[in-house]
C-alpha cells in the first residue's frame, strides 16, 4: 500500500507542550517516529501520553511547539485536514450507521463515490466480511475493535494513532488482538503510534517504546533495551521488577566500576551506568530478579569466580508454576526479589535458609542514587 522507505510518514514533534491553566500535561517534548515503525507511548494514567497522541491527531491544540508529518507542518491544521486517523479507546463507532457505513465514513467525506470494493476489502482484512450490515451494538467487543481499526485504516493515513485500543477487552482477547494488530501493521506498513499503560502490551507490539512519566519522556528505546538498560528507577520499576542496592564507587578497573555495598564488593560495567561515577559517589545498583541465582550458604564455595554476590536469608517463597519467587532479606537491601526457574529445586531453599545471591556483573545496571528507588512501582500494572 504505502512504500515503507518513503520518509513522508515520519512524525516529528519539536518542543511540543500542553498546559491547562497552571497544570502542565506535557512538558516541551521532542520526538521522531520513523515511517513504518510501530511506536508505543507507555506510561501510567495522567502521564501525558494521550494528550501527546491527541496533539498529533489535531484534537488537542499544543500550547507550544510544532507537529511535522514528513516535511509538512500540520500544527495549525484541524483534524479533518490531517492525513492521520485514530482508533479511540471506546472505539467511538457511529451507533446510527451499520458496519459498512462506519468503515466507509472517511472515504465518503472525502467525496469518493464508489466505496464498495474498498470497504469490502478492508472488512476482509479484519475478518468481518459477514457483519457488514449489522449495527455496532450487535457486535462483540473484539469485533467492534476491529471495525474501529478498519474505519481508520481504509483512509490509508500516513500515521495510525491508537489510544489504548485494547483496554476494554478481556485478557485472552487482548493477547489475540495484540498479534492481530501487529500482523495488520506489518501488512500495510503504515506508521502506528500506540498509547498504552500496559508494559507487556507495549513490549509485545512495539519496535520502539517511549516511557512517559509526569509529562516527560523518561526513556526511549527498543523493548529489550529499555528492559535491560533502564536509565531511571521509574523505567526500571514500570517495566518489570527491579532490585536496588545503594553502593559507593570504590575504584575503576578497565571498563568496570567496583562498588562497595555493605561489606562486599559489586562490579558494574561502566557502559551500563547512567549515573556520575566519581570515586566516593553514590550509585543505585540494579538487577532484575530473574538474572539472580540462589545458592544455599553451605554450597557457597561452588559459586564461580567473577560473579557479584550478596548474602541473605530467605524471608518468603511462593511457588507459581513456571518459577518460584523468593523474597530474600539481605543487609544491603531488605527485600530482594529473586525468580528461579523450576528446573532443579533445592529442597533446602525454604524461608529461614541462609543463602548467597549471585549474578553475572554484565546484568547489573547503575542509576543515579539521587532519585527515589520506588518511583513507578505503584503505577506499574
Amino acid at each position, binding site marked *: 500500500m504505502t512504500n515503507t522507505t518513503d520518509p513522508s510518514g515520519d512524525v516529528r514533534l519539536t518542543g511540543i507542550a500542553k498546559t491547562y491553566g497552571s497544570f502542565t500535561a506535557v512538558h516541551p517534548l521532542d520526538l521522531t517516529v520513523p515511517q513504518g515503525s510501530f511506536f508505543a507511548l507507555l506510561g501510567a494514567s495522567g502521564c501525558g501520553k494521550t494528550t501527546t497522541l491527541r496533539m498529533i491527531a489535531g484534537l488537542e491544540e499544543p500550547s507550544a511547539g510544532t507537529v511535522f508529518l514528513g516535511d509538512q507542518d500540520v500544527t495549525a491544521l*484541524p483534524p479533518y485536514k490531517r492525513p492521520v486517523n485514530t482508533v*479511540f479507546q471506546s472505539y467511538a463507532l*457511529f451507533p446510527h450507521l451499520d458496519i459498512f457505513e462506519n468503515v466507509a*465514513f472517511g472515504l465518503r*467525506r472525502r467525496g469518493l463515490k464508489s466505496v464498495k470494493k474498498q470497504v469490502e476489502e478492508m472488512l476482509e482484512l479484519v475478518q468481518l466480511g459477514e457483519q457488514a450490515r449489522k449495527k455496532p451494538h450487535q457486535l462483540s467487543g473484539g469485533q467492534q475493535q476491529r471495525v474501529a481499526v478498519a474505519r481508520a485504516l481504509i*483512509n490509508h493515513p500516513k500515521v495510525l494513532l491508537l489510544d489504548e485500543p485494547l483496554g476494554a477487552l478481556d485478557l485472552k482477547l487482548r493477547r489475540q488482538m495484540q498479534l492481530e494488530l501487529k500482523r495488520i501493521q506489518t501488512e500495510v506498513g503504515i506508521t502506528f503510534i500506540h498509547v498504552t499503560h500496559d508494559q507487556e502490551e507495549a513490549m509485545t507490539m512495539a519496535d520502539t517504546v517511549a516511557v512517559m512519566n509526569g509529562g516527560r519522556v523518561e526513556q526511549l528505546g527498543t523493548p529489550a533495551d529499555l528492559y535491560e538498560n533502564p536509565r531511571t528507577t521509574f523505567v526500571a520499576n514500570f517495566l518489570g521488577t527491579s532490585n536496588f542496592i545503594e553502593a559507593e564507587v570504590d575504584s575503576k578497573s578497565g571498563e568496570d566500576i567496583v562498588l562497595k555495598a555493605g561489606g562486599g564488593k559489586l562490579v558494574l560495567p561502566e557502559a551500563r551506568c547512567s549515573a556520575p561515577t566519581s570515586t566516593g559517589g553514590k550509585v543505585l545498583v540494579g538487577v532484575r530478579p530473574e538474572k539472580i541465582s540462589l545458592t544455599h550458604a553451605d554450597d557457597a564455595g561452588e559459586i564461580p569466580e567473577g560473579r557479584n554476590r550478596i548474602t541473605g536469608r530467605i524471608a518468603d517463597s511462593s511457588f507459581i508454576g513456571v518459577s518460584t519467587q523468593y523474597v530474600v532479606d539481605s543487609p544491603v537491601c531488605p527485600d530482594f526479589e529473586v525468580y528461579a526457574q523450576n528446573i532443579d529445586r533445592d529442597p533446602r531453599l525454604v524461608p529461614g535458609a541462609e543463602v548467597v545471591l549471585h549474578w553475572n556483573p554484565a546484568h547489573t545496571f547503575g542509576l543515579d542514587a539521587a532519585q527515589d528507588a520506588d518511583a513507578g512501582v505503584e503505577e506499574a500494572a
Partner: protein
Amino acid sequence: MPFVNWLKRHLVVIAGLVTLAYLLLPNIIVTVFSFNKPKGRFNYEWQQFSLDAWKDPCGVSDLCGSLSVSLQIAFWATLGATLLGTLIAFALVRYRFRARGAVNSLIFLPMAMPEVVMAASLLTLFLNMGAQLGFWTILIAHIMFCLSFVVTAVKARVMSMDPKLEEAARDLYAGPFQTFVRVTLPIAAPGIAAGALLAFALSFDDFIITNFNAGSTVTFPMFVWGSAQRGTPVQINVIGTAMFIVAVLFVLISVVIGNRRNRQKA
C-alpha cells in the same frame, strides 16, 4: 379452587386488558357518537346511525376555521420550540458557562408552574407591552411552554451521547458542518423527534393559556369549549376521531418501519 388458580395465572393479562379498556373507552365513545344523529343540539344520547357529520365535517360554522388556526399555531410552535429547545439543550449539556445551573432550573419552571398562573401573568405582560392579542401572542405563549418539554427530551439524549463520536467524525475528514449533519444530528434525532411530538400535542390541545391570550382568535379547543355551552355538534366527534386515527396511523407506520429495519439487520 380451580377458579382462584386460573385467576392467579391470568391476573397480569386481566389487569392489562382492564387498563387498556379504561384508556380506550373514551376514544370509542367519541368515535361511536360521531355516527350519531342527535335529536336536539346536544350529542349526549344515542339516537340512530348516520353518516351526515362525516360527509360534511365543516358543516358547523367556524369549526374548520378554528381547526386550521390550531394546526397552524401547533406547526409553528413546534418548529420554534424544537429549534430553540434543541440549541438550548446542546448548550446546557456541552458547555460550562456562568449561570448554567440557573438556566437549567429556569427552563424547568414552565413545567412546574400552574398553567392558569402562567396564563394570567402572560396576559399581564402582553397588555402592559400593548401587544395586540391574537395569533402571534398565542404562538409566543405556546413556544414558551413547549420549550421546557423539548429541552428536557433533547437534553436526556445529548447527555447519553459520547463526545468522542464527534471527535471520531472530525478525525475521519468531516468538517464542523458535516460532523453536525452526519453524526450529531442523526444521533440526537430521536430526542428531538420526541420533543417535537410532545410540543405539537401540547400546543394543539392547550386551552387555558390560549384562552387568556387569544383576543378574538378562536382555536379548536376554544371552539369546542364555546360550543359546549350551546350544544355539541357531531362534527366535533368527527374531528376528534380523525385526529385519533391519524395518531394511530403514525404509530403503526413507525412500528412497521422499525420491524422492517430489524428484519433487515437479522
